[in-house]
């Protein structure tokens, strides 16, 4: 239930502005891959191209290929809606639907496309997803309460439960802990460790310790200057990137000399 991602010669544009240039990267199935780099280097933009969420931004477009187990996401006739149901996403700020109960939030993605689901199936799916997101014990007695009543960390885990309820191949996380306190961050990091048993996880983070803690491989993105495109500078085992990087810029960044 997880697939690998291979990106070939990917350029991302906002209108005429080249935001990310010439990315080639191979992301293994059932692993955690972290994207690090200074603000504005295009790592979030690049992450969004992995499930075509960049198309929400007017004028954003892509050249190149993103292959999900060999199938090009940008091939002719590919429906972005289908792509996104296969490649889930968790955002920087927790965003449960405020008008829905906790239970309905978990089921939101499953009920799309008029899929019918029996109450029994729904109940077990809710429990399975919330357990998968390490949230079940905290919310099992208040499933009918609004999701917005939870703490920030719980809301973020609810969003993860919502993402895994549709059984995606890949889960993308765009700085999922940047709005959370250290305890909630720890809970999410533990969860990421468990998620990689079943899913391919890609995470963007500003926190280098976090990248070092959770990821198997790390990609360092950088930007030459304002107005220049972001580039993938170095990609390798997390251990290597943090202890023995081959590029000077990577070493400077991970050792805290800039960024």
């Amino acid at each position: 239930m997880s697939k690998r991602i291979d990106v070939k010669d990917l350029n991302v544009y906002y209108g005429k502005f080249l935001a990310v240039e010439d990315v080639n990267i191979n992301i293994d199935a059932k692993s955690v891959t972290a994207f690090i780099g200074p603000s504005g280097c295009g790592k979030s933009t690049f992450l969004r191209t992995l499930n075509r969420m960049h198309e929400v931004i007017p004028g954003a477009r892509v050249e190149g290929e993103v292959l999900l187990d060999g199938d090009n996401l940008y091939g002719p006739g590919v429906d972005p809606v289908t792509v996104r149901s296969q490649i889930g996403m968790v955002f920087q700020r927790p965003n449960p639907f405020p008008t829905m109960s906790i239970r309905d939030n978990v089921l939101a993605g499953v009920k799309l496309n008029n899929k019918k689901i029996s109450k029994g199936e729904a109940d077990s799916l809710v429990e399975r997803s919330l357990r998968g997101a390490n949230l079940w014990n905290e919310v099992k007695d208040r499933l009918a309460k609004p999701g917005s009543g939870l703490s920030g960390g719980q809301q973020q885990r609810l969003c993860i439960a919502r993402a895994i309820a549709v059984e995606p191949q890949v889960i993308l996380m765009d700085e999922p802990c940047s709005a959370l306190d250290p305890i909630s961050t720890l809970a999410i990091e533990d969860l990421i460790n468990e998620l990689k048993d079943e899913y391919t996880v890609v995470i963007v983070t500003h926190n280098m310790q976090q990248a070092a803690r959770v990821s198997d491989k790390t990609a360092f993105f950088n930007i030459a200057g304002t107005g220049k495109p972001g580039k993938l500078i170095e990609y390798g085992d997390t251990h290597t990137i943090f202890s023995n990087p081959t590029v000077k810029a990577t070493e400077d960044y991970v050792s805290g000399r800039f960024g």
Partner: protein
Amino acid sequence: MTSTSLTKSQGAGRAGDKVFSGATLAAGCLILAVLFGVALFLVIQSLPAFTAPAEDIQGGEGFLAYIWPIVVGTLIAAVIALVIATPVAIGVALFISHYAPRGLASGLGYVVDLLAAIPSVVYGAWGAAFLAKEIAPAYDWLAKNMGWLPIFQGPASATGKTILTAGIVLAVMVLPIITSLSREIFLQTPKLHEEAALALGATRWEMIRMAVLPFGRPGIVSAVMLGLGRALGETMAVALVLSSGALTASLIQSGNQTIAAEIALNFPEASGLKVSTLIAAGLVLFVITLGVNMIARWIITRHKEFSGAN
């Protein structure tokens, strides 16, 4: 020395502050005084209509018997207007906020706002001279095929000057109000929630149902309430379009009357008790409109709490 420099006020700035706060206070008091004056005028002038013997009131059966058919007529016209205008307005608002390309969206929004700027007498003339004539055959068809429903009971009006036509004209008039308010609300839907829906694999319509409409619901309700306020009080369009008469259930026969049109049509030739009766009718409309606005306010405050909690 320090204490004096702290207590000493800076002349010019202070004076400007006082003038401004005085001006705003005066403006606030003025609007209350005008409202109070209108209410007082309505109550005093309409007292004779409430106290007069029943047979002296127009119709000869007292004020209640006089007023209730036109209250019902007013409500019928307003409800027709809302039933037609609300779905169209929400559709147009959604199209402008979420479907149309940006250039088209702003142009369309501008045109819709322009609709609100057309004087109501123009709408009335259009309804009376054009729409009524064109729509009469449709009423015939309704009478023949759906006449078993009391609201479409025949024989249909040959001129088309019915309460349904008046309702349709009112619908066109309240459309811009509901559309522009709904559009503003829809545009304020947090990007966060729209993206949450899209990232789950929602189509655009599913995203609207999951994120935009639930977020906008309280706003839609208050927009509809404001539209209702206009539909209730509209005078000229109804007076021109509707060939009025006694209260009837059928919407496609001539008949029915609204309070505002009743006042406008009868006031010029009225004298004595008739004037009081019409002013009393105005008081009733005032109370209905006040009620509608209070409901709208209540819904808007509820909306505030709701969005604040999230």
